[in-house]
C-alpha cells in the first residue's frame, strides 16, 4: 500500500508538473485524467489481473496487480493537486528562476516540488481512504479470480477468518484496522500535512485546511467530474455558446473512451493470446444476447443506485447541516465520521450479513454497503458547504427572526446546495464502484471452498464479479459489462450532472 502511495506521488508529480508546464501536454493529460477518475476502476481490475498475472504467473504478479489498482485509484487526484499547485505558482517566481537561468531539474527541485508539497499532503490524506477501499476490494476479487491468491492482506484476512468461522479474529482484525486508520490518519498523515504547511505559497486560509472536513471538501472539489466542469468553466464556455461546444466536447470524450477500450482490447489479446483473438471473435448474435443480458442488469443497478441515493440524501443532507451548524457537535463528530468513513465497506460486509432481517436479503446488504461506501461524500460536502457560508449569513435568520422552517428552506439548504451537488456526483461515482462488491460477494476459506455470502437479484456488479470468477473467465461478458457501465456513467455525467453543477455553482455559491 505504501509502495503504491509512493508510486502515486511520483507519478502525480511527473504528470502534474508536465501538464502544468506544457500546454500541449495539458490538453491531452487533463481530459484523460478526468476520464480515469470518473470510471469505475474496480470494473477494470479483472483485466489488469489477467494481464499482469498472465505475464508473471506467481504471487508477485498477483501482488503487482493489486498495487497497480491501488495506484490507479489514488494517483489521479494527487496528480490534479500537483497540476493546480504548479499552475498556481505566481509568475514572479517563474521569472526569478528564468533570470537565474535555472535548469529543468533545479526548477523542479527548488520550485515545483516544494510548491506542490502541501497539496500532495492533503490529497494523500484523503486518497488514503479511497486506496484502502480498493485495497480490500481488489484483494478479495483477486482471490476469487485466480488460483494463486495474494497471500497476505487485510482483505484476505477478513474473508478467510470469516469463512472459516473465526469471528474472534475477524473482530480483532476490524478493531486493528480502526486503530491503524486512526494512527495513520491522525498521527502520520496529519504531521506530514502540518509539516508541508510551511511550503505553502498561496494565501489560502489556513485554518480551513487544518479542518479535516474542509480538506476532504477541497479534495473532492478537485476530483473527477466536478473537475471536468470547472475546466470547461475556466476556459470561458458561457451559457450561450455552450450547447454547441458541449456537444463537440462530448464527441471528443466519446472518441477518447472508444480509443481507450480499443487499446485495452489490443493489450489483452497480446497478453493473453487465445482469449480474444481475431480468429474466433464471438459472433454478432452472441454479442447481442450477452449485451441484452448486460443491459438488463445495468438497468437494475441504475435503479438501485438511484434509490440508495435518495436514502443517502434523506440522511446525509439534514445530518450534514445539523452537524455543521453547531460548533461543539462539529468538533466532536467530525473526527469520528472521518474514521468511520475511511473504514473500507467491503471488509465490513461479512458483519453486515450477520445483521438479522437485513442479512437475509441481498438487496438490504447491497443498500448498506453502497451507503457505507458513498454517503460520506454527501455528508462531508454538505458540512463543508455550510461551514464556508459566512457567519453573518447563518445569522440572518436570527436577525430577521425567521422561523426555523423558513431558515432551512431559504438559507441552510440553498447554502449547502453547491457542496451537496459536488458530493452527490462523487457519491454516485463511489456507489458504482461499491456495486461491484455489494451485489455479489463470495468468500473463500483456506481449504479452497467458496461460499456465497450475499447476492442481489440482478445487477451489473453481479455480472462483472460472476464473469470474473467463472472458470475460465467470461471475457466477452466482462468486457461488455464494463464498457456499457462506463459509457452510461460518462454519458450521464456529461449530460445531467454537468448541467446541474453549472446551474448550482452559478446561483448557489456565496461570493459577495
Amino acid at each position, binding site marked *: 500500500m505504501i509502495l503504491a502511495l509512493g508510486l502515486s506521488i511520483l507519478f502525480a508529480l511527473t504528470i502534474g508538473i508536465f501538464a502544468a508546464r506544457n500546454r500541449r501536454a495539458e490538453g491531452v493529460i487533463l481530459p484523460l485524467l478526468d476520464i480515469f477518475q470518473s470510471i469505475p476502476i474496480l470494473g477494470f481490475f479483472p483485466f489488469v489481473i489477467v494481464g499482469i498475472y498472465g505475464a508473471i504467473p506467481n504471487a508477485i504478479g498477483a501482488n503487482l496487480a493489486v498495487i497497480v489498482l491501488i495506484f490507479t485509484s489514488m494517483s489521479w487526484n494527487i496528480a490534479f493537486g500537483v497540476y493546480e499547485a504548479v499552475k498556481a505558482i505566481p509568475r514572479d517566481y517563474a521569472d526569478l528562476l528564468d533570470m537565474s537561468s535555472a535548469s529543468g531539474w533545479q526548477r523542479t527541485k527548488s520550485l515545483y516540488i516544494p510548491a506542490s508539497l502541501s497539496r500532495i499532503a492533503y490529497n494523500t490524506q484523503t486518497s488514503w481512504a479511497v486506496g484502502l477501499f480498493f485495497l480490500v476490494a481488489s484483494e478479495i476479487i483477486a482471490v476469487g479470480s485466480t488460483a494463486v491468491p495474494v497471500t497476505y492482506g487485510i482483505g484476505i484476512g477478513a474473508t478467510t477468518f470469516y469463512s472459516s468461522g473465526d469471528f474472534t479474529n475477524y473482530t480483532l482484525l476490524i478493531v486493528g484496522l480502526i486503530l491503524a486508520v486512526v494512527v495513520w490518519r491522525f498521527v502520520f498523515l496529519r504531521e506530514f500535512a502540518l509539516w508541508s504547511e510551511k511550503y505553502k505559497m498561496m494565501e489560502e486560509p489556513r485554518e480551513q485546511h487544518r479542518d479535516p472536513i474542509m480538506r476532504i471538501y477541497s479534495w473532492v472539489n478537485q476530483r473527477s467530474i466536478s473537475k471536468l466542469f470547472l475546466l470547461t468553466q475556466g476556459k470561458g464556455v458561457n451559457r450561450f455558446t455552450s450547447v454547441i461546444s458541449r456537444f463537440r466536447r462530448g464527441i471528443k470524450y466519446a472518441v477518447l473512451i472508444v480509443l481507450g477500450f480499443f487499446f485495452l482490447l489490443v493489450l489483452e489479446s497480446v497478453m493473453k493470446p487465445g482469449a480474444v483473438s481475431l480468429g474466433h471473435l464471438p459472433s454478432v448474435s452472441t454479442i447481442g444476447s450477452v449485451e441484452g443480458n448486460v443491459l438488463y442488469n445495468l438497468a437494475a443497478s441504475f435503479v438501485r443506485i438511484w434509490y440508495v441515493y435518495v436514502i443517502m440524501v434523506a440522511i446525509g443532507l439534514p445530518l450534514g447541516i445539523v452537524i455543521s451548524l453547531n460548533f461543539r457537535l462539529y468538533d466532536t463528530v467530525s473526527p469520528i465520521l472521518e474514521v468511520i468513513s475511511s473504514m473500507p465497506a467491503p471488509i465490513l460486509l461479512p458483519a453486515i450479513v450477520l445483521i438479522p432481517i437485513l442479512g437475509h436479503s441481498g438487496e438490504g446488504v447491497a443498500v448498506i454497503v453502497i451507503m457505507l461506501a458513498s454517503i460520506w461524500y454527501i455528508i462531508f460536502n454538505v458540512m463543508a458547504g455550510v461551514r464556508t457560508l459566512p457567519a453573518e449569513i447563518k445569522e440572518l435568520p436570527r*436577525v430577521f*427572526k425567521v422561523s426555523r422552517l423558513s431558515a432551512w428552506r431559504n438559507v441552510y439548504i*440553498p447554502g449547502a446546495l453547491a457542496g451537496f451537488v459536488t458530493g452527490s456526483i462523487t457519491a454516485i461515482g463511489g456507489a458504482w464502484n461499491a456495486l461491484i462488491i455489494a451485489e455479489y460477494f463470495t468468500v473463500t476459506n483456506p481449504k479452497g471452498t467458496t461460499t456465497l455470502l450475499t447476492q442481489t437479484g440482478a445487477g451489473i456488479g453481479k455480472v462483472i464479479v460472476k464473469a470474473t470468477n467463472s472458470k475460465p473467465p467470461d471475457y466477452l461478458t466482462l468486457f461488455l459489462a464494463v464498457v456499457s457501465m462506463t459509457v452510461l456513467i460518462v454519458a450521464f455525467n456529461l449530460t445531467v450532472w454537468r448541467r446541474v453543477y453549472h446551474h448550482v455553482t452559478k446561483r448557489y455559491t456565496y461570493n459577495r
Partner: protein
Amino acid sequence: MPGSSTQLASGDPIITVENVSLDYFKEKEPLPVLVDVSLTAGKDELVAITGPSGCGKSTLLRIMGGLSKATAGTVKILNSEVTGPRNDITMVFQNFVLLPWRTSLENVLFGLSSRKDLTAEQKKEKAEKALEETGLMGFENVYPGELSGGMKQRVGVARALATDPEVMLMDEPFSSLDDLTAERLRKEIHELLINPSTSVKTVIMVSHNVEEIIELADKVVVLSQRPAHVVGEIRIDLPRPRNKKSEEFFTWVDKVYSFLS
C-alpha cells in the same frame, strides 16, 4: 410597536446602552473587550461609533442588536430591555449578506418572513416600496450576483427598511464599496433614513472613516483600544447639507482625529 412616536421630541433617547461590559473567556481567564460602555442615541439622530480597528465596535453593535450577550450592563429601547433579536431593531451589514439564490425582491421579502401580521400581498407591497425608495425600481427580479456592490447594499438597506424598524444598526455599511459608489449612497442615506415617512427613529453606524462620520453623523462616540471604553462623545453641530470641502468640515475631522490618536 412599543411607545408612540408622536409623544417623542427630536433628540429624546431611543436606545440607551448602560454600563455594558464584555469579557471573552480564554482558558477561564477573562479577557476584557468592552469596559463600562454607555451611550444613547436620540430620536432623528444618526450616531456613529468609531475607534481603532479591532477595538470591539462591531461587537458593541451586535450587543445592541441583541445578537450577542454582554457580560454586564443593559441595552434598552425606550423602556424595554433588549434580550435578543427583535422586530424593532434591524441591521445593515458591511458585506451585504444577501442570499445569492434569491432575487432582490425575495431577499427583501425574506426580512419580512417573520411578520405574521401581514398578508403575502402586504409584504410584497412593502418590499416593493422599500426597493423603490432605495432606488432599485426595475431590479426587483435580479439576483444579487448580477448587481454591483452599491446596488447590493441598497438591497441590504431596503431589506432592513421594509421591516419597519425603529432602530437601524449599520456595521460599516460603506466600507466594502468603492469610493464613488460609497459617495453616492452616503448622499442619499441620511435623507432616506432620518425622515418622518419611515419608521426609523434612530440610526447607529459603526465606521472607521472619519470624513464619512462628519458627513453623516449628529454625534460620534469614540472608543479606545482594547479593552474598549468610551474616550469621547462629540456632538457634530454642522448644518446640513454638509460641504465636504469647507474649512469648517475639516476642523471637525481634525477634532475627531485628536480623540483617536
